[in-house]
């Protein structure tokens, strides 16, 4: 403390309950935030689950239509044809692969997994005993 005025200007006495009050407010905010985030992750998870299901269904239909399954099976059933024209076979496989549908499916699957991670993490925040001491 500086001499003179400072000796007369001490900090006011801290109310006993203030520490607990601030901690309670922080805890309440943390839980509220966790609840909101949990809700958002759940919504995102459900949406991505629906998108994953639809895109998988669509990709499967496209695979059957484009003959991808046939060419794929050919790779294993006729090794001689594979050895003779593997480049053409791979190109045909790539062309018949429903790229868009599979990309959407994988993106939806990744979002779904992230959502599950987010839900679990926020659920832990909501359900654990008080993080801050009382």
């Amino acid at each position, binding site marked *: *403390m*500086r*001499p*003179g*005025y*400072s000796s*007369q*200007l*001490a*900090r*006011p006495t*801290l*109310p006993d309950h*203030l*520490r607990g*009050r*601030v*901690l309670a*407010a*922080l805890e309440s*905010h*943390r839980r509220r935030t966790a609840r909101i985030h949990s809700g958002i992750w759940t919504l995102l998870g459900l949406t991505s689950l629906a998108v994953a299901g639809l895109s998988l269904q669509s990709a499967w239909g496209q695979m059957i239509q484009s003959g991808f399954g046939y060419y794929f099976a050919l790779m294993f059933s006729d090794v001689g044809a594979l050895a003779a024209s593997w480049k053409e076979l791979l190109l045909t496989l790539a062309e018949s692969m429903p790229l868009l549908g599979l990309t959407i499916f994988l993106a939806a699957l990744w979002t779904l997994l992230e959502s599950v991670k987010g839900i679990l993490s926020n659920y832990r925040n909501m359900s654990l005993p008080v*993080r*801050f*001491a009382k």
Partner: protein
Amino acid sequence: MIDERNDGELISEVLRGDDALFEVLLDRYLSAAYGFAYRLVNNKSDAEDIVQDSFLKAWKALKQYNPEKKFITWLLAIVRNTALDHLRKKRTVPFSAMEMGEDAPPIEETLVDENDLPDETFRKVEDKLFAESLLEKLPILYREVVVLRYQEDMDFKEIGEALGRPVETVKSQHHRAMRMLREQLSNAPE
């Protein structure tokens, strides 16, 4: 148990997910935050509200904290802004009075009399309550400088950081505050 880690280390840990360490920061600076808030609003209940809001804001904005500056100056800047918002809502202080230079001639704000010894002004003040009552009469612009200087023992650079003002402005405001307090002291009954 006292945590010996510095503020920067604690904040890094909090940002990495160890929320509970924020409590250590709270224990370190609760008293300073309350002391500053109380001097700005002169009301215990309001000061408590301000401190609670300030720590919540600090918690939410922790990612924005610049580790090159002291945590206490950053926190007290939040306390100050929260207190000013609070006073504005209560309309106890006109908006203009809180802004820089509104109640002081601009030239005078930049002048610092280095020969003056402001601390000497208060050698005579022996009564704590009297000292506090003198402080309460100061405009908030000067009061916050005096509180940070004498109650929180900050240097002018730190005060400048906390209040968002240039050091020279802080020095001149401190000088003016001392002059106002000296005038009040000389007018006070013996």
